[in-house]
């Protein structure tokens, strides 16, 4: 590239923030389920994949307007989350952590199989929401889709904060996260909160899929790697920690982008993961995690 180094770096940081916002949303999805159930939902990445592909079905194949396609996709993902909880999670009589991990992995394989049957093995394209013409931004070129991604992430984060702090259902879910038994004694229907957490988490995963697809494209087998990055961000930020997830998501995204640009593109994932491992080795409960919690919810 003919650009000077500082504008290259700005470029990398911009794309890092963008991809990092998506990791942050996926990590929040992990946290919502983890908080109310102590389950790590390994199918979280598949929600993202389904979000992207269903959006393509509505807007590219059926030519629906963007907003309608967006709303329908989120609605369908909400239903997918509910179905998953009803048919895979709640039938388990004696849930142990390892059983639940394998169940969510089995569900993720199932979703992948369904997606392959519907969309085939091809990689699908979703046009950017507002054209592809770059916007000049302090010496770098800014892809308009970046603004959409960061903007929608901010909206999702703000709405979720309001939901968890000020609505009665949100407060009930937070109560379940703090102490399930106590919440249940206070008359909160814990089972309904678990169902709700899957619905909410799937919807958020779907949104992540919709906004990232114009940049990365989407195929039936892309869910796993996106889920892995989101899980990495959730762990790095301290499992269950809402703001930790956002910080860690952005950090992972920026490191990955800088690593790819300045060191070697093949090693970008390795660099991000190496930093993650080092953080865990130094502080075993993530950057913002509390040691007590990390030991409490164990196998």
């Amino acid at each position: 590239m003919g650009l000077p180094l500082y504008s290259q770096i700005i470029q990398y940081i911009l794309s890092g923030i963008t991809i990092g916002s998506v990791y942050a949303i996926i990590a929040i999805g992990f946290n919502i389920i983890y908080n109310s159930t102590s389950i790590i939902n390994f199918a979280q990445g598949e929600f993202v994949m389904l979000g992207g592909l269903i959006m393509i079905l509505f807007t590219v194949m059926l030519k629906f307007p963007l907003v309608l396609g967006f709303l329908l996709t989120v609605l369908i993902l909400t239903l997918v989350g509910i179905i998953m909880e009803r048919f895979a999670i709640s039938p388990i009589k004696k849930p142990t952590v390892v059983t639940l991990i394998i169940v969510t992995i089995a569900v993720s394989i199932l979703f992948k199989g369904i997606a392959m049957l519907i969309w085939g093995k091809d990689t699908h394209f979703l046009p950017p929401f507002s054209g592809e013409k770059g916007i000049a931004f302090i010496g770098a070129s800014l892809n308009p889709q970046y603004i959409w991604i960061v903007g929608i992430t901010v909206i999702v984060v703000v709405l979720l904060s309001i939901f968890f702090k000020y609505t009665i259902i949100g407060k009930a879910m937070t109560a379940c996260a703090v102490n399930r038994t106590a919440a249940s004694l206070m008359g909160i229907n814990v089972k309904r909160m678990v169902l709700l957490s899957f619905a909410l988490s799937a919807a958020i995963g779907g949104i992540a899929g919709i906004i990232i697809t114009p940049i990365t494209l989407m195929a039936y087998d892309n869910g796993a790697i996106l889920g892995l990055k989101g899980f990495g961000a959730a762990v790095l930020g301290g499992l269950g920690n809402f703001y930790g997830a956002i910080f860690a998501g952005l950090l992972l995204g920026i490191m990955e982008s800088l690593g790819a640009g300045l060191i070697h593109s093949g090693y970008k994932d390795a660099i991000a993961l190496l930093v993650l491992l080092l953080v865990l080795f130094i502080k075993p409960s993530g950057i913002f995690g509390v040691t007590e919690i990390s030991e409490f919810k164990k196998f």
Partner: protein
Amino acid sequence: MDKKDSLILLFLTVCLVVFPFIVTNTYYISTMVFVGIHGIIAIGLSLLMGYAGQISIGHAAFFGLGAYTSAVLTAKLGFHPWSAFFLGILLSSCIALIIGIPSLKLKGHYLAMATLGFGEITYIVFNELTDITGGPSGIGDIPKISLAGYVMNTDIKYYFFVWAFLLLILALSLNLIHSRIGRALRSIHDSEVAANAMGVNTSKLKIQVFLISAVFGSVAGSLYTHYVTFVSPSSFSLFFSVLLVMMVVIGGMHSVWGALIGAALLTILPEFLRALKDFEIFVYGAVLLLIMIFLPRGLSGGLEYLFNRLIKKL
């Protein structure tokens, strides 16, 4: 090893010896070779997961380290297959120590993430270290291994070779479980705090078991390399690590026999499902889900239950 285990081991040995005389189709023999290879690494992982209670979602890395050490040293540098085999074990052990010591201080999902990250990094290195590993296109023309003058160049010979290894590893593992160490391990699984209080050095034991499972993984990897005579990174991806964990859990975590049953099921099932073409992945996921919902203790747990019911009826 107790009496029941010895009897099952004897029965298994007889079945294994008889099998190739009844089933002569080389395709089935070849599938059984893979069951044996997967079984070796799954047994190691079940010691770690079922007995020490520590998860690893990165065990494909040790399988890959063994496989690549054998491949690079024999095909590119002309080493003797057996010296490469033992150097693979040495390398895997060193890396298991480097990764295991800090990782095994982590708990639950944090340990899962750390091992997962380690597995992914190894996979990326196999892909990117093109000068040594050949990158995504891999290494071919790997020589066959021989034992006491016999070159293992047919499916049937390799079948006996791999299963002899598996029976040896199985016997060693069963002995370990019924020893003092095995009891100490189970105490970690039940309650690490209590085990510590009783004077069990839990952190040292966890690392030792991690080491053993890494060695088994490396052995399986070297056996794999000399059988297929070709390695490429795609065999050692995250998917394979997850598959190994599933073998252990689906088979039943509470016994090493479960690992063997799980390895057999998850190696043979995809071969049957291949006929379903596009429905393959879908049916595979559905079968796993149903097993986990209806048999939470895994197949060996289910079999044990049926067996006990049968005995009561008689």
